[in-house]
């Protein structure tokens, strides 16, 4: 009886047979995106920091908690703030879920940023992984846009003024700026239409785009030959000069849409036995551990710290000082010096420089000692942004005037 029920749900042969076992392997998505074997070195924490996995798991957590929050949220100014209060005080597990969503979002910004730094430091964006770097930068941009659109939804003072400033930065872009602003807000000022648009972008459009890009990102890792080896280790073997090529089987046809015929066009290079281990269970176990650690960290943060919520949005009264989310404070600090130049030009140039990095960095070497200029320039940019961010976070008070953080009544964290 039980057996027949199970057999009706899980079709295919049971894993007790040879055929069943191979089907289990062929039809498993998570197995499918892994190679059969991975290098031992790549499983070490110090190789990648598991930052890509952590980012991926944070996205999963954000999807799950975000979906839950949607049950109690109306994207309408008169109700949105009340919904936040309900989530804080009335909804069972409401504060926990909202905290998780908030902290996971902030951790994600940190994780993708560190992920980018790690990949840059390892030179992993170089041949043949140029395009996956581009996908990664687009994903970073999507994460920032997601966090920006999500920031408006609580409809509190912080949200309202951060997005007012943000959309006016967009409007200061040459030529297209004002049109894009109207398009984004569905009007000329932040109101009902804008909240609805940001909501749709935040819960449907941007997550959909991000999901699609994440798939491409993961798929490209395998297509580009797995993770890049350590920059200090031996150079990667790019094209396999095999002495005895794998013979193509006469039974197999490679008729992709009837256009391509003949032998396989590429062969897979299997790493040496002694430095490679099976993905299952060695990689799976570590990925599971990373998932548990990420979830535990987010839950711990959610239990310990409450997500901030300021008073309800008041279009006539700008809080003083009005600060952007902390990771945008570097941009805001630059903005306080000159608007179009630092709000539009500098960030656009930065994004462009990041996107095109693999195509203008001609240096083929991935060894740190051959990349002194690239590494120090990158460190300089990162450090100067961090300094600007810290200034914006701790040294700016009312009217964006300079204050010492230990002075009485200082602005404090955003």
């Amino acid at each position: 009886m039980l057996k027949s029920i199970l057999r009706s749900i899980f079709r295919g042969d049971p894993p007790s047979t040879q055929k069943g076992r191979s089907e289990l392997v062929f039809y498993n998505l998570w197995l499918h995106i892994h190679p059969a074997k991975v290098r031992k070195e790549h499983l070490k924490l110090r190789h990648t920091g598991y930052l890509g996995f952590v980012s991926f798991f944070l996205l999963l957590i954000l999807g799950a908690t975000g979906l839950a929050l949607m049950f109690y949220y109306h994207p309408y100014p008169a109700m949105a703030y009340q919904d936040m209060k309900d989530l804080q005080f009335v909804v069972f597990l409401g504060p926990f879920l909202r905290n998780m969503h908030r902290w996971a979002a902030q951790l994600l910004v940190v994780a993708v940023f560190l992920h980018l730094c790690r990949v840059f430091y390892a030179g992993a964006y170089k041949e043949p992984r140029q395009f996956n770097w581009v996908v990664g930068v687009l994903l970073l941009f999507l994460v920032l846009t997601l966090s920006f659109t999500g920031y408006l939804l609580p409809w509190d003072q912080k949200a309202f003024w951060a997005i007012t400033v943000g959309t006016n930065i967009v409007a200061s872009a040459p030529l297209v700026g004002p049109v894009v602003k109207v398009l984004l807000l569905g009007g000329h000022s932040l109101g009902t239409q804008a909240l609805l648009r940001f909501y749709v972008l935040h819960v449907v459009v941007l997550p959909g785009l991000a999901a699609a890009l994440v798939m491409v990102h993961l798929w490209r890792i395998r297509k580009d030959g797995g993770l890049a080896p350590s920059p200090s280790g031996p150079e990667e073997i790019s094209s396999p000069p095999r002495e005895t090529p794998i013979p193509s089987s006469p039974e197999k046809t490679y008729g992709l849409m009837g256009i391509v015929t003949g032998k396989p066009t590429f062969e897979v290079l299997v790493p040496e036995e002694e430095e490679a281990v099976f993905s299952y269970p060695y990689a799976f176990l570590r990925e599971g551990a990373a998932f548990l650690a990420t979830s535990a960290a987010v839950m711990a943060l959610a239990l310990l710290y409450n997500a901030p919520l300021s008073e309800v949005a008041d279009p006539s009264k700008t809080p003083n000082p009005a600060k952007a989310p902390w990771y945008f404070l570097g941009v805001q600090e630059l903005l306080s010096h000159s608007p179009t130049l630092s709000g539009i030009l500098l960030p656009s140039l930065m994004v462009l420089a990041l996107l095109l990095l693999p195509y203008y960095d001609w240096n083929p070497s991935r060894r740190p000692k051959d990349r002194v200029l690239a590494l120090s320039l990158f460190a300089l940019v990162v450090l100067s942004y961090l300094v600007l961010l810290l200034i914006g976070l701790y040294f700016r008070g009312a009217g964006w005037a300079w204050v010492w953080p230990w002075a009485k009544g200082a602005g404090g964290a955003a």
Partner: protein
Amino acid sequence: MNRRSFLSLSTASAAALLATAGMGLAGFFRFLFPGVFYEPARRFKAGYPADFPPGQPVFLPAEKVYLFHDPAKGFSAASAVCTHLGCTVQWSERDRQFNCPCHGSVFAADGAVLRGPAPRPLSWLEVTLSKDGQLQIDKNRPVTDAYHLLVPA
């Protein structure tokens, strides 16, 4: 079908497909612009002149406008929207200047930029008397800071 007719047919089909996609995109682009803006009117009545005796400027919160009443020159109205990134500026009576809380711009009483990143002075708006005797402010009609409306008492 020969090669020539096949190629011309494919070109025509591809062009038709592209044109359809283009029209669809253009339509969607236009669709995203609302037909009606449910927003506060750009021209509004602030109240009767007698409600605003000379002295400190009055802030009209819904419209984000400061209404000034100079005993000699008359009424004038300044937009409280900072020309930098749209925060609401605050009038400080002590320093007789506008302060922007977002990025520290400071504007003089005539709207000129004194300090900070603001690229332009605050905008001054036309003040007229409507038929029912109320002060009417029109955000669509910017004026210079010299513009005043003198209402005989």
